[in-house]
């Protein structure tokens, strides 16, 4: 009897490559959510105007922040979806164990975070093009990607981290829900509850928000996100390691 004995790393690599291809429709959702976000953003953040004699100046502000927020939502939902039965059981059609399945999911989510972040950052340029051609504005601030490449890369990098953080959160929530369906109601209740309870500048949600979103030092920010995501993923892996495949 000749038995095949693959290593964990080999299998994780194979699963990762497979998932990039097999979860294709998750990217369609990304594109859709970003298009919707861009459409919303075209409404503009606000404007200011000045009038003097024959001149009239109006300045419109646009921001691609909404695209980032929508991408974060997408990342969160994608992470939850990768823990659902259909996708989780899909691994078991091929060679797998629970550790390799989780590791390849994490690699996939990291890649997805990067793609989401890159497209979200690039959407600024798409918005500029749309505004330039389709809106009645005479001057558009046309700073291209090549004028401040580092800034763009930096933006992509930090956005990737944010997306990845939300992937980690979504992944843990997904696993919890798979273990006990009641969490579908309990988790939102806890979340909304904490917002109302003792909220203000000292409330839990505010503190968590500040902890991650108001950090000004890049190294500290990276440390925070990486450590938090790792903890979340380790919890999820620990919880799902005994999970059985049920149809």
């Amino acid at each position, binding site marked *: 009897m000749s038995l095949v004995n693959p290593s964990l790393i080999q299998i994780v690599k194979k699963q990762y490559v497979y998932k990039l291809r097999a979860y294709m429709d998750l990217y369609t959702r990304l594109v859709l959510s970003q298009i919707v976000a861009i459409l919303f953003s075209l409404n503009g953040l606000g404007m200011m105007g000045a009038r003097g004699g024959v001149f009239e100046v109006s300045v419109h502000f646009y921001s691609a922040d909404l695209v980032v927020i929508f991408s974060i939502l997408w990342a969160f939902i994608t992470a939850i979806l990768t823990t659902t039965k259909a996708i989780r059981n899909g691994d078991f059609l091929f060679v797998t164990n629970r*550790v390799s399945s989780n590791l390849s999911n994490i690699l996939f989510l990291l890649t997805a975070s990067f793609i989401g972040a890159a497209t979200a950052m690039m959407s600024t340029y798409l918005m500029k093009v749309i505004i330039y051609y389709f809106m009645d504005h005479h001057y558009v601030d046309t700073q291209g990607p090549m004028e401040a490449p580092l800034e763009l890369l930096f933006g992509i990098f930090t956005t990737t981290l944010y997306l990845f953080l939300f992937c980690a959160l979504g992944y843990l929530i997904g696993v919890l829900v798979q273990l006990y369906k009641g969490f579908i109601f309990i988790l939102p209740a806890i979340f909304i509850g904490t917002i109302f309870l003792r909220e203000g500048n000292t409330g839990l949600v505010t503190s968590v928000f500040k902890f991650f979103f108001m950090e000004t030092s890049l190294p500290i920010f990276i440390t925070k996100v990486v450590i938090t995501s790792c903890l979340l993923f380790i919890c999820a892996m620990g919880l799902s390691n005994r999970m059985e495949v049920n149809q």
Partner: protein
Amino acid sequence: MNVIECKDVTKNYKRKKALNSISFQIEENKITGLVGRNGAGKTTLLKIIAGYMKEDSGELQVFGESPFNNLMASANTIFIHDQMEFSPALNLKEIFEAAENFYEKWDRERSFRLLHYFSLDPKQYYKRLSKGMKSTFNMIFGLSANCTLTIFDEPTTGMDAAVRKDFYRALLKDYLDNPRTIILSSHHLNEIEDLIEDLLLIKDGKELLYMPIADLKEWAIAVIGKSNVVNEWIGNKEMIHSKDMVQDQVYVVVRNDFSKVELEKAYKAGIKFSPVSSTDLCVYLTSKTKGGIDDVFS
């Protein structure tokens, strides 16, 4: 060497005992038929063997190791069942390519020839296949993977008669080319009877019979005669099945372990014997009551 060693394995679901201290060993390169009624625990057993689930107590080893969370066991086992859902983003050809990447012994040429024979379009998407076509595709998937342990859980669900016949033939041919351990579960023993070497019959999560299928035909015998004569002759032997017939005749199935003296006595008393088909015997053995459905209506 034994591929599967199962000792006192028990598995409980929330409200039901699915496996109740089942024990058996499956040898290398044998085709074993796993037969039992609905809910007897066939699928649960196969899922534990495939590493999908973990036993609650007892010990189950595949290739000498516990299959749960075991990459080596997973790489050498393929489990084909009717709940397989492949990614909707991949077409059949792409699924095969992915599988080739995972299963080292994958037989590409055979997989495409089988696909062609069963007229499945490689460009087709899995979710667009009909139920029977899905079963056919799963079957091709299972055969092409060439895994040392190949498990089919009711593989013919939804297949039409022609495909069913072809499948069993393909399985046999493939086995002869490439001997490996195969477990085939089915409700229909008559379909797989000619294919399997050993039969594992389970009832209520426990093994009931485990023997070469050839011996099963001799294992029990049917006795026909006047009810009082037959009952007296059988004495306190266990009846596997009994059925009342016209004119006070009864049809009783019992274990075939009579002595010569007893048989001679039976001839003199006018009792007739007839063989019992394996399929019928399995039905009798696994039924809840001695008289079968007739008891409900009497």
